[in-house]
């Protein structure tokens, strides 16, 4: 039966300064709630087709961590009409590349392929949104693959191992404290029924976003997407994540001893996300601290004083819930993690008392702006960036983002540093090489 589809069509100019006609994003929401963003880009005869589900490790319950990522693996294990292994085979046979990733907030699937193969990709993605087999036999064998993945990324990787410890220390209540790949005990335990229920709950059109950028006519592509995805019934609204992280009332610290060549130190502070007016300032602050070789941490700790082999900071602007601002450093041989911790903290303190220079501020803004321009060079990146903004409230936010960045002042940086980087609200992780 054919379902009538009414469309809410929004057309917006993404890059107002660009005279290029291909920058028009066609946005639509199908009757079943599926959100669709399409952008014509005919530079190469290829298309990047991406399906983003609004589910990640933040939607997981204690005892079932890693289930979102486990399901991502199983999305390649077949439906009644495309058996196990057929997804990858069909894509490769048609000269395409595909992959997927799971984050704290989302699970994303992409296929980059010749534009004339768009129908095939739409068919495959729509099929596995609704009809995944989740055969217990496949689950059993894929569980072992996920366990091996965890060993590679975390258990056998000093940095990954320490990061997991610090996250779980920093978050007492919010699921961001659990690793995306899941605790080993949970990966081992999760049952096929739980995975099936998770799939049914979250893999519904009204919880998904389709983004395509490439050499197609948007009207045609939209028609094809309507025809194929439009048949999938709307699901119940997935349960919201209710957990709120309570304020941190004292420094937390973990020391890990294991085989490693050099120590590592991590510092993590709770900071607000993009919903806060402070977010653009945090983005600029992160760039001033660690964007390139002229940034503060590199120039001082790595270059001038040679205390660290590496040092940096990282802010997650796009995080759905408030997350952590990370600092890290690897001491040079002969230096201690204690020394590096002191130095990283000193940089933070300096930001609270001393305004950044005009040059630093201008450089950071130029770097952020240039990164946007570079993204436009790749259709895959263009699609991903559209999706990132859409997931935090609307793809058109990309337009106002740079204006907000440009408005950040030196006084903002001082104020934000004071507001969010108090000594009592940090979590510290130190990896000590075992002799």
């Amino acid at each position, binding site marked *: 039966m054919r379902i009538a589809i009414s469309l809410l069509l929004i057309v917006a100019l993404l890059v107002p300064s660009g005279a290029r006609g291909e920058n028009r994003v066609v946005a639509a929401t199908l009757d079943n709630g599926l959100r669709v963003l399409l952008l014509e880009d005919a530079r190469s005869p290829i298309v990047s087709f991406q399906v983003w589900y609004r589910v990640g490790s933040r939607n997981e319950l204690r005892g079932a961590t890693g289930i979102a990522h486990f399901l991502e693996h199983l999305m*390649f294990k077949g439906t009644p009409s495309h058996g196990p292994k057929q997804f990858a085979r069909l894509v490769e046979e048609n000269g395409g590349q595909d992959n997927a*990733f*799971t984050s704290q907030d989302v699970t994303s699937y992409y296929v980059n392929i010749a534009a004339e193969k768009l129908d095939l990709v739409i068919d495959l993605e729509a099929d596995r949104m609704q009809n995944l087999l989740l055969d217990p036999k496949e689950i059993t064998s894929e569980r072992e693959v996920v366990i091996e993945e965890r060993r590679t990324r975390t*258990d*056998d990787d000093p940095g990954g191992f320490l990061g997991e410890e610090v996250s779980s220390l920093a978050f007492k209540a919010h699921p961001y404290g659990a690793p995306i790949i899941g605790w080993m005990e949970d990966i081992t335990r999760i049952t096929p029924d739980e995975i099936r229920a998770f799939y049914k709950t979250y893999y519904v059109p009204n919880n998904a976003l389709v983004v395509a950028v490439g050499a197609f006519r948007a009207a045609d592509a939209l028609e094809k997407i309507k025809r194929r995805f439009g048949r999938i019934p709307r699901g119940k609204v997935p349960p919201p994540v209710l957990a709120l992280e309570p304020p941190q009332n004292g420094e937390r610290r973990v020391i890990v001893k294991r*085989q490693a060549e050099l120590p590592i130190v991590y510092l993590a502070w709770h900071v607000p996300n993009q919903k806060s007016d402070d977010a653009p300032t945090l983005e600029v602050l992160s760039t001033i601290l660690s964007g390139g070789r002229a*940034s503060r941490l590199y120039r001082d700790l790595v270059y001038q004083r040679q205390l660290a082999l590496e040092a940096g900071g990282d802010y997650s602007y796009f995080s759905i819930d408030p997350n952590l601002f990370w600092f890290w450093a690897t001491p040079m041989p002969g230096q201690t993690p204690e020394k590096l911790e002191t130095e990283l903290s000193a940089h933070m303190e300096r930001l609270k008392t001393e305004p950044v220079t005009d040059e630093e501020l201008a450089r950071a803004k*130029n770097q952020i702006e240039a990164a946007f321009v570079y993204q436009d060079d790749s259709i895959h990146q263009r699609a991903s960036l559209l999706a990132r903004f859409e997931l935090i409230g609307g793809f058109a936010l990309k337009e106002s983002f740079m204006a907000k960045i440009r408005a950040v002042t030196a006084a903002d940086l001082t104020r934000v540093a004071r507001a969010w980087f108090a000594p009592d609200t940090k979590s510290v992780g130190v990896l000590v090489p075992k002799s």
Partner: protein
Amino acid sequence: MTATRSSLTLLAALASLLVSEPAAAAPLAHREVLPNGIVLLVAERPAVPIVAVRVLMRAGAVYDPADRAGLANLTGAVLTRGTAKRTGPELDSAIEFVGGSLQAGAGRDGLTVSLTAQKKDMTLGLDLVSEVVLSPTLPDGEVTRKVAEIGAAIKRSDEDPGTVAARALGRLVFQGHPYGFPVEGTRESVARLTRDDVVNFYRGHARPDTTVIAVVGAVTVDEARREIMARFGSWVRPTASLPSVASATASASAREETVKRELTQTTIMFGRQAVLQTDPDYFPLAVASYVLGGGSASRLYTRVREESGLAYSVYSWFSPWRYGSSFAVSAQTRTAEAPKVVAMIREELARMGRELVGDRELALAKQYLIGSFPLRLDTSGKVADFLVAVEDRGLGLDYADRYKERIAKVTAADVQRVAVKYFPPTSFDLVIVGETK
């Protein structure tokens, strides 16, 4: 590190990326030889207002003297640390102020200076590139800094079982050839390097007649020629003859090496020498490698990962260089199962020579290698990397088209023939990194 944790579910770390693969119809770039011998390659990509520039000099690790492993790498690291006009920090500030990036680094064959900048900043970017290439001061203090930094980085990389395995394997596969040394050298060899070594190395190997410059992006051929000539036109071609390098030759006997590490997984890496990209066997071998361990439909992926759940990562890859190449197979598995995975890899290598590949898997490999070509050249940076590599290895700008034609012609019998020749399990060196008894 908190944000996304890409799971590489498919197409695991297909390390080979560049150059190995397929084809496009239109000429990829304009090519001309400047009066002083520089080969200039220009690809116009007007849609996005950026430029990517690569300057490839024949000054890679393959030219390191035997007692100075890591010299090319050190030279690359120091190149952006000061010029006649600017100190290292001034260079950093200048390019980063406009949101651009200027990097230099050595690989096995070449030393590359790379620029990414917005079109509006191209003049500044090219000024910096030419300063770095033509008037680097290679200051003593910066050499000392980089020696310490590289030494620490080598020490740290000893934590990574994949790096440990690749280093050991390189030594076995290319024993007696410069390719057998790690590009970054060893902690001992790097500690011995001095500023004089760096200065002499750069003076001896940086010369216009072995330099390739690619300019890709929102730029016309005329504009690129003008800008490059203005900066590099007076670079004088030296009279000294070019340094020569012997081609790598495989040793007769295969060896095994075990490196003990306290880890939950064991890293398994098989390797041997293979053929150059100019060898007719290269094309059937590329197909054979893809069937064996190239993607998520490959035999190794299917058997080791999908059917047995023994590994997250299992794949095979070619590493083609100018004077030799290697073919390798790698997997990481829980330590107790390592012998089983070693046996499976050997069986699958042998089966490639014993049986004809099936019609569908042959077609899949060929269609993937041919069809995915445009995806590998989807940014200005990737196009620039591809152009200088194709030029340096003497493959010609029509390489992409030839590749496509040659891959299309590969038959199941061709695949079996090269597998008999190159895939006998006993011809592979083997490195195991992990817990051992």
